Each structure stands twice: as C-alpha cells, then as structure tokens.
C-alpha cells in the first residue's frame, strides 16, 4: 500500500520522496501529507550535539550524515528551527567577494545552493536573478573594478557596468546625475540572487532527519559538562545528554553558550533590522545594493519588496524594530527608486548578528576539547550556510579543519592574524 512510506507522529515509518506523482496522489485526497521531519525522545547520549537549529546547525548535521555517515547526532534548538537569523535575513546569495579566499569560499556555497533543491529533494526556490552593487563615488568604483578582476580570475561571473546598463536592468532606478548620491556604476554579478530561506532550513532538517539525525525543538542548552578540558555532556532543559562534541551554531547568542565552558569569543551582538512592503506586480529584477546608502532591496516571488540595512549602531539582544530604521530606510530607497513612494511597509523585524572585529567568522576548535564553534557570522551567515555546514561536518568527522576554514580559527585573535575580508558585508559597518 502506498501510504506505508509516510512518517508517523511517533517517529516510525520511512521518509517519503517528493515527486510530481506524489504531489498529485496526495493532493487528490489531502489526507496523508507526510511530516517533513520527526519528533524523537531525547536520547541519553549522542556522538555529537549541535546547538542551534538554523541553517548552519542543520547543514552541519545534514552533511555529517550525508558525507561522513555520522548519524548519531542531535540538533537542539531552544525555539523552533529557522526562528533566528535563518528566518530573519534578507535571503541574498552571492560570491563576488574581494579576497581570493573569500571568493572561493562563498562560491562553494553558491554552487551548493545551485544544486540544493535536487540534493535535498526540496524546492528551495533559488532565483539567480543577478546582484547589483551600486557605486556612488570614485573610491567605490575603483574597489568594484578590483573585486570584478579578482572574481574573474577565480572564474566568477562579475563585471563593472555603467549607468546605461543599470537603467536597462532596473528601469525604475534614478541614474540621473543631479541626485545627492549619483550612480556612477555598479558591480554586476549575474549568478547572485535570492532564495526561500525557510525552505533551506526545512530542506536541511528533512534531509538530516532522513539520514538519522534527531532534531529537538524547544530544547534549550542550559550548561555544558566538562571533565578537565574535555566536553562530556550537554545539559538541556529536557535532560542531560552525554556527548564528546558540542558545536556552537547559535549566532547572536554565541557568547552566552561559550561562557558555559569559559571560552571567550571576540563577538558582540548587534540587531539587524529588515522590512517588507505590500506585494506588487514584478518590476524589480536583480537584487540592488548600495553601500553608501546603507540599503539592499529585492523583490520576492510573492511581489513584496524586501529591504535591509546596516546593523543597529549599538549592541543588544532585543529584536524590536525602531522608527528611526524605517525612516532612514525609506529615505534611502527613495533616493534610488523615487517611483515607489506610494508603497506601504507591511512589517519590520530584527535578527541578532554576532559581529567579530574583522567581519569574518570564527570556525573550528577552541581551548576546550570537543567544544567547536561556527559563529561570528555577523550579517553574512545565511549565504555561507551550506559551505559552513560542509566544512564543520568534515572537521567533526576527521578532527582536522578543512583548508578553506583554517584561517577562520579562534586563535587568530590572540595571535594577531585577523582576516581582512572587506567584501564580506554588502553595506558598511
């Protein structure tokens, strides 16, 4: 019987593969939609416990199971999966960075995103509609030329274009020269685009679950037990889990988790706000970013315009929005596209960003044996989710950090070898 393949609420059953046939079959009856991932009782021990059910934590769990066959893994999440930064970012994917290391790293992520729908058997709606970074002065134009040449050497589709080409791509853009910040050119990156961020989280969760990983929502880490300098257990609000490995993927809350084992991270937490307008007919093709005006804007498949800006200029764990943000954002967006003045903002929100002094992540081992970190992702963590998960899984499986994250180690701060990736954030900090 066809219905045998579904997951049952008690966690039994086998994963179901999505297909057009499956869609039609279930769509006719609407009675037997399968659960995408199961609920489990908390086991007494796991080979690894990943703290944080966002894209980084779930991707790490997925690649542990898929690439390394390590399936005795738990992802614990204090709220619901994808409820933090993974569900609050503006879902922009790109790889047009400044340093060759940065370009290679983020391009690996973009390549993984390109095949993610097929790999996960889950539509993540990656829309490669192009990415425009505007230059409003000679300095930024020069940096963009530099970035374009580095990108091309690494085989990335990236080019500096002039106002006429920008106007052709975005007819609504004001490219006249009598504005406060005239548009002199742009770095155009055709493979960049936007994605359905929730789908990425759900796809990784479903894939990890199918591989045998346990996903525990509403499970908060309250402590980490160590013996000497070694992790022996993760303590949660639902009980103790014996484990030799705890991975910190908690973004804005990273320092609170690291405090549990006395590891100090060079991270401060800043809110980052975003907003969407009411939906309108499609009129905006590429993602448009202006570093000078501190704004990025894209149109979703639903027709809403999604806006983001730079982080709030103070540290905080509060995710409340502010009027200053909306006012400033609206002013800057209207500089670029005066014709959308009548659009109404539907809602605004904030996420928490873990900002490091060099705007690069902190990944790898710590002085406490078995306590690993994948944090410090600031404002650019979502686009790096797949590559970070792949690299962290390799680190857990082999005990050795892969070459592409070796430079992101925690020891670079006491040893004074910071990573200067100034292309990391699309808008200035």
């Amino acid at each position: 019987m066809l219905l045998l393949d579904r997951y049952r609420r008690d966690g039994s059953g086998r994963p179901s593969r999505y297909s057009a046939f499956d869609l039609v079959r279930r769509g006719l009856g609407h009675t037997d939609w399968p659960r995408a991932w199961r609920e489990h009782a908390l086991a007494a021990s796991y080979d690894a416990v990943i703290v944080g059910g966002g894209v980084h934590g779930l991707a790490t769990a997925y690649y542990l199971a898929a690439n390394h066959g390590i399936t005795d893994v738990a992802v614990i999440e204090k709220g619901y999966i994808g409820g933090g930064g993974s569900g609050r970012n503006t879902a922009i994917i790109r790889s047009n960075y400044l340093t060759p290391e940065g370009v290679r790293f983020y391009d690996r992520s973009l390549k993984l995103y390109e095949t993610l729908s097929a790999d996960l058997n889950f539509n993540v709606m990656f829309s490669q509609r192009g990415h425009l970074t505007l230059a409003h002065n000679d300095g930024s134009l020069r940096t963009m030329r530099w970035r374009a040449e580095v990108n091309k050497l690494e085989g990335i589709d990236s080019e500096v274009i002039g106002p006429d080409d920008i106007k052709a791509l975005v007819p609504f853009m004001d490219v006249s020269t009598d504005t406060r910040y005239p548009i002199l050119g742009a770095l155009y990156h055709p493979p960049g685009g936007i994605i359905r961020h929730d789908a990425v989280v759900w796809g990784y969760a479903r894939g990890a679950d199918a591989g045998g990983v346990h996903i525990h929502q509403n499970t908060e880490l309250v402590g980490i037990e160590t013996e000497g300098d070694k992790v022996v257990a993760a303590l949660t609000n639902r009980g103790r889990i014996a484990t030799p490995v705890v991975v910190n993927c908690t973004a804005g809350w990273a320092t609170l988790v690291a405090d549990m084992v006395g590891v100090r991270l060079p991270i401060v937490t800043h809110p980052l706000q975003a907003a969407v307008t009411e939906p309108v007919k499609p009129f905006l093709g590429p993602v448009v970013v202006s570093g000078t005006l501190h704004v990025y804007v894209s149109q979703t498949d639903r027709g809403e315009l999604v806006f983001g800006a730079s982080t709030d200029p103070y540290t905080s764990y509060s995710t409340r929005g502010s009027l200053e943000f909306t006012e400033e954002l609206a002013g800057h967006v209207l500089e670029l596209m005066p014709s959308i003045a009548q659009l109404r903002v539907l809602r605004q929100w904030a996420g928490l960003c873990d900002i490091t002094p060099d705007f690069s992540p902190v990944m790898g081992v710590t002085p406490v044996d078995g306590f690993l970190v994948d944090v410090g992702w600031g404002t650019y963590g979502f686009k790096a989710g797949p590559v970070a998960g792949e690299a962290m899984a390799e680190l857990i499986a082999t005990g050795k950090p892969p070459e592409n994250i070796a430079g992101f180690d925690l020891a670079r701060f006491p040893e004074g070898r910071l990573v200067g990736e100034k292309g990391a954030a699309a808008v200035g900090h």
Partner: protein
Amino acid sequence: MILVPCPHCGPRNVSEFRHIGESTARPDPGSATPEQWRDYLYLRRNPAGWTIETWYHRAGCRAYFGAERHTVTNRFRRSWLGGQVPPLAGTVAEMGGGVDASSAEGSPGP
C-alpha cells in the same frame, strides 16, 4: 524608542548618541604583553543583561559618559560622568550623583 539618560541633558533619543561600547579595563602599558593588548582590543563580555558601557552624546552636549544598560530590554539604570568605571549594579549614591534613568523612564528594568 530607546531613551539614553545623558548626565547633562537628561533622557534623550538614542539617535542623538554614539554607542562606544562596553567599558573594559586598560592593561598596564608598562608590562602588558601583546596577547593582553589583543584581549583588551577584541574581547567583550557581551552579556544578555546589565552591562556597563560608554556612550557619547554626539548631537547634544558631546560628553562621553558611563551608563548601565540592560541589553535585552534596552533600559538604562543610571549614568555618570568621568572615566571611573563603577562596579556593576551599585547604587546611584555610590556614583556620587548622576541621572537615575529608571525614574525618568517609569519602571526600572529587571
């Protein structure tokens, strides 16, 4: 809206201020190692709770001052002038005056 209690000007909108950051103790220049300097530069407590920090009233009296703020609620408990970093959760009297923000903002934070 976040109200910042400037010791000179009283409670004002946060947009008038620049957040300088958590107050940290400077190592002794005579004896500090490079590692200690780097800790001083890069490491912060980043607590989810009360913290002591420095603010600058950019669009006001342009004073640098200390303040105690709760990073989850963004409520201020007190503020003071001068570079002396007081202990966390002391009383206003110990600070030798200063603005008690909780009275200006209604109920005190947790």
